[in-house]
């Protein structure tokens, strides 16, 4: 077990930190689930952090010079390399602390990226940083496509979804591939902590981000983040959708602590996946055949996670 977890009591709805690390006044869309997830994640981390942000929605909406929404030290460089920039910051603080140039006090180094920055273009950089064992938290805010550039498909776009580069048509039903299992790829690095989260379960989300910070070495939190603009869903429904995705088992919430899978929330009576899919325009074109396949595959994937969690 991770010794750092023993003292951590967890957050509760009544004792949420008051600090806003990402301040109001940013330019995110109405009902942005990603911003909500980012806000809660940052609340869990507090002020003693340094953030390296990949290019993407969160970077763009929080930093149009001369304005900034960040109340903590924050650095953006490029799309694919947030984890490596974080590696450099971590390495610098190690040597500077050793040489007495900065205080020895621990500061959490946090990298933030979307699903494209994490699962597609940046996967090599994250893989390198995780393999080298830098003490950092990597937060992936997964809104399941390249939203910042106008809703193009990514490897994390779900099966059947309509995007601007996977349009349904006479010869197509949208995204033809199953969503890339990025948390499993991260877990395969043998890092001490991996977790999935949804902003509808915000206390669970915050606890996981905090645990990721507490653990020594690389930690990864994959957060499902509804995007009303890209998904064609009402802005006020983001939390409802973020709950439905868990209740239908489409996104299982779990932790992988030192290789051991632990289900955070077992869904014994799942709602049908159509309850989730019908909330978003991106799935509207799907036919019986595809819906049946999604239900079957979701059940299989969920069973796999349950089986993994039952292994010693």
């Amino acid at each position, binding site marked *: 077990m991770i010794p750092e977890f023993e003292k951590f009591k967890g957050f509760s709805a009544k004792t949420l930190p008051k600090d806003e690390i990402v301040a109001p006044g940013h330019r995110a869309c109405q009902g942005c689930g990603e911003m909500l997830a980012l806000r809660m994640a940052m609340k869990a981390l507090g002020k003693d*952090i340094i953030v390296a942000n990949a290019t993407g929605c969160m970077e763009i909406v929080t*930093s*149009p010079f001369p304005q900034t929404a960040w109340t903590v030290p924050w650095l953006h460089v490029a799309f694919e390399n947030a984890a490596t920039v974080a590696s*450099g910051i971590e390495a610098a603080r190690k040597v500077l602390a050793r040489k007495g140039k900065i205080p020895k006090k621990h500061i959490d180094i946090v990298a933030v990226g979307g699903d494209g920055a994490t699962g597609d273009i940046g996967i090599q950089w994250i893989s390198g940083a995780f*393999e080298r064992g830098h003490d950092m938290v990597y937060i992936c805010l997964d809104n399941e496509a390249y939203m910042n550039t106008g809703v193009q498909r990514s490897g994390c776009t779900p099966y059947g979804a309509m995007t601007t580069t996977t349009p349904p048509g006479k010869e197509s039903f949208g995204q033809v591939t199953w969503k890339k299992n990025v948390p499993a790829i991260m877990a395969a690095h043998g890092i001490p902590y991996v977790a999935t989260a949804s902003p509808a379960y915000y206390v669970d989300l915050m606890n996981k981000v905090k645990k990721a910070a507490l653990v020594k070495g690389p930690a990864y939190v994959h957060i499902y983040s509804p995007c009303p603009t890209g998904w064609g869903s009402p802005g006020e429904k983001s939390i409802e959708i973020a709950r439905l995705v868990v209740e239908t088992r489409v996104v299982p919430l779990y932790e992988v602590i030192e290789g051991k899978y632990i289900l955070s929330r077992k869904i014994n009576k799942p709602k049908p996946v159509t309850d989730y899919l019908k909330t978003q325009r991106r799935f509207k074109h799907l036919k019986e055949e595809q819906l049946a396949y999604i239900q079957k595959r979701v059940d299989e994937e969920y069973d796999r996670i349950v089986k993994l969690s039952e292994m010693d």
Partner: protein
Amino acid sequence: MSKRVGVEVSIAVADAVKLARAEVISAYPITPQTHIVEHLSDVVANGELDAEYVPVESEHAAMSCCLGASAAGARTFTSSSSQGLSLMSEILYHPGPMRLPVVMVVANRALAAPISIWNDHNDIMVQRDIGWIQTFAENGQEAVDLLLHAYRVAEDPKVSLPFIVNIDGFTLSHVIEPIILPDQEDVDAYIPSFKPHVKLDPKKPVTMGPVGIPEVYTEAKVAHEMALRASKKVIIQGWKEFAGKFGRQYNPIETYRMDDAETVLVTMGSISETAMTAIDAMRDEGQKVGLLRIRLWRPFPGPEFRKAIGKTVKTLAVIDRTISTGASCGPVSAELRSILYKMPGRAPKIFGFVAGLGGRDVTVDTFREIVDKANLYAKKRPTDLYEVIGVREK
């Protein structure tokens, strides 16, 4: 006391990085840069240098790591060549406008295709607009001295810009030369501890690398350009201080046998030593030849170059170490044509030559051929815009 020892230039450069007390070193291996970073991993492993050595998974990551470390307030070092430098390219454009004094040694090597591990300047010439200060070393001693000078200048609060020292791959990086490594205490006095004016620090939060909307982007780019131009003063000052402390004087442009010279070779990097040998031989035969060597490539020392051209000079024969494909001439020739266009009075005739591509030897005879051709073209206009020397017909 510092003493002169026979040492491989790559090892001496790495020892200079150690003397400069780099704090975060991040690199990815590529020929011919490898001996530099291997030796640095040795000195870190042996405890001779208190630094973090981050062995990243690509050159792009090496530059990304240095950038993060520099933003956090550490003195950084990396080194690369060729394909690796190209892979870094996206990130090379960041530390300049962000005013992060990352220092890098490029062991210059040709670019594919066809793949070649050998020396020319194609790798760095495609990166000439990245907004770093750039110098070119002629020999091993100069490589060491320019590296120390790079830290002195890059981290100067008036400069705060990234710095590349170019050394020719193999022909300089892998040769053994007699080199003086300065004493640690003299280097410490020459390069003070890095004190960034802003850094990533929770006690004083800053936002770095924000979005540049159209209303500010132009100003940000111009501010960077002005900083790079203004750095020339500190670059020259840094060399003056270096001369005072270590006894070796460096200038943006070096001259050799320029008194009464009429035909002048213009070079950058290690071929300059061979050029001087060629000039001595041609002078012995009564030819009025001289050499101008460009040490400071960015910011380009235009006034210094124009001043270095004496009144007797009639013809400049400029040697580029890369083809600027489809252009009217190589990048060094283009730079010089541009600054001579502004030259008051009568500018010398200028002819562009390309030599030493992908490790092809540049010999005394190569320089003789170039001088002969330049003299011929001064009388009889050449048909081609520039000429590649030594192209085999079969």
